[in-house]
């Protein structure tokens, strides 16, 4: 799981082009969206949906579904490990 969490952090930084941020800067349990976390927004959420599809073969039905998964890196890792097709 730790390996997947690190991989996700690196992918998030790459896909969302988060300059100046390293995987160590991201708290695995902290919220990704809104205040008090990374401060990502709805466009970032759409990019994460594309990431899930491209990298792990997981296709989400709606943006709303993404909201329940992208709460923290730990939560995404849990979802990916349970649902990944590749």
């Amino acid at each position, binding site marked *: 799981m730790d390996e997947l969490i690190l991989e996700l952090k690196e992918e998030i930084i790459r896909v*969302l*082009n*988060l*300059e*100046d941020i390293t995987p160590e800067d991201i708290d695995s349990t902290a919220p990704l969206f809104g205040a008090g976390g990374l*401060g990502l927004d*709805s*466009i970032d959420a*759409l*990019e994460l*949906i*594309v990431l899930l*599809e*491209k990298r792990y073969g997981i296709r989400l039905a*709606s*943006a709303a579904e993404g909201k329940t998964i992208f709460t923290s890196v730990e939560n995404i890792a849990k979802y990916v490990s349970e649902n990944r097709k590749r």
Partner: protein
Amino acid sequence: MSSIAITGSGIICAIGNDKKQVHDSLLTGKTGVGELRYLPSRHKELPVGEVKMTDAELKKALGISPTEVYSRTAMLGAYALRQTIADAGLTSEALKGKRVTLISGTTVGGTEKSEQYSCGNNTKAIDHLTTINSQIPISDCQLSTISTACSSALNAIILGTRMLLMDETDIVLAGGTEALSVFHLNGFNSLMILDHQVCRPFDATRQGLNLGEGAAYLVLERTNEARLRKANIEAYISGWGNRCDAFHQTATSENGEGAFLAMTDAMKMANLNPEEIDYINAHGTGTPDNDKAESTALHRVFADALPPVSSTKSLTGHTTSASGSIETVICLIAMHNRFIPGNYGWKNKSPECITPSAFIPDTDLHHVICNSFGFGGNDSSLIISDRETHINSNVNYQVSTVNCAEATVSQEDELKALREYMSPMESRRMCQLMKASFLTSMRALEIAGINKPDAIIIATEHGMFENGKKISGTLNEQGEEGISPTLFMQSTHNTLAGALAIHLGCHGYNITYSQGKESFWWAIQDAQRLIREGKAENVLVGLHDEMPIYSKSVIVKKV
């Protein structure tokens, strides 16, 4: 005080190839949205509103040789414009000695042809005009292309109206054209705002929009001159509003601020109260966001006096850049035939939306609003009336303007300086062109001592070329999969104007010109026009292009 008449119109879309056919479909409520037949896309699960003619049939109808290469966007435009010109009786005799201006709105332009030849996204929006222009029976017609995404065509009509009011031209042909493309079908899909069934604007179960295609144009003239040439006056333009939501690149604000301001401006200009509006053709795309925000804006403007509102997009699909003129022509058809078009597909009341109108026959429509909103928060409203109205345009020709500040960037390494104005987190999604446009805008505003300009006008020859190319590359390599939503929402020509408005919190007039090398000229002219109309004291004007990067921002100010 002046009055502007509509003296001709033409239309082609999913529910008909001319006004008569569109009229019949509006009466029966037969949708033109269905499984895609003509577009070479694998997304059969996404219903679309295609024009029911192949490219070959369009060529034949237009007298174009089958071997010649024309984009579908251009052919649809030419097809609609030919009807418009015939409808208005614009023979070469009638046009003799007149200054004629063709203003067309498009975003897709020739993208679909570029797809066929795998040569990247052709973002030169003006290319479609050469074909369309050939329909006009004179040789020296002034041309302009507006590209404000889905509000392009309505903004073309608005610009034409303003140019006539200021006596810059005599006859205006204005509207827009857009063909479906694999590019934007996949792009909208990446934003997850396409419904897999026929769309249901304002319904509680709405899931998104269906893309459509088509074209429509109007002929506009000063009323006294239209009467002199004994033109048949179809309606009058009474007011307009062009505002920016300044909230998000593709989503709409909670309170529908841009839409609220656009409708309010239009009604003020037309001297009309809420009770006097008989029908509103909503933008009503069927996306959860748009319909909610538009409903909020409608409630804010009309309160208890909300007239019948409907969206016709469940019939036509969302014809994007052409929707403003297509729906204006639909309003004209409704006005002349005394009915209110139904909001087909609506069944379930949504707590966050207005209750749209069903089809209503035998009803007089004196004043009608047509709404058209686009990516970048480009929100516009137009009012047409069945009786002569005088536009409150308050033009002051004595006002002079000056370019009081200028900043340019042409080297990539200069872009690092953007950090003085925003954090890397804020600029994380910006391509180089966007960074350059922000840097020169901030510097010009700083020199002029202005925090927030009254309006933003952008000129661009190629638009967001690099982003478009990346998307086309992904489409070619991965077969219609994995498009970056960020790149797509930053692929429209008006991306920079919208993003600047968001950053600066500028809800004022906002427009993007893409008329080749003349784009900047149109932008400066428009800034001066806006100041003389009393709609702005200062305007941020920019010229931004890639390959190589060149970005210039100036502040045009009232003296």
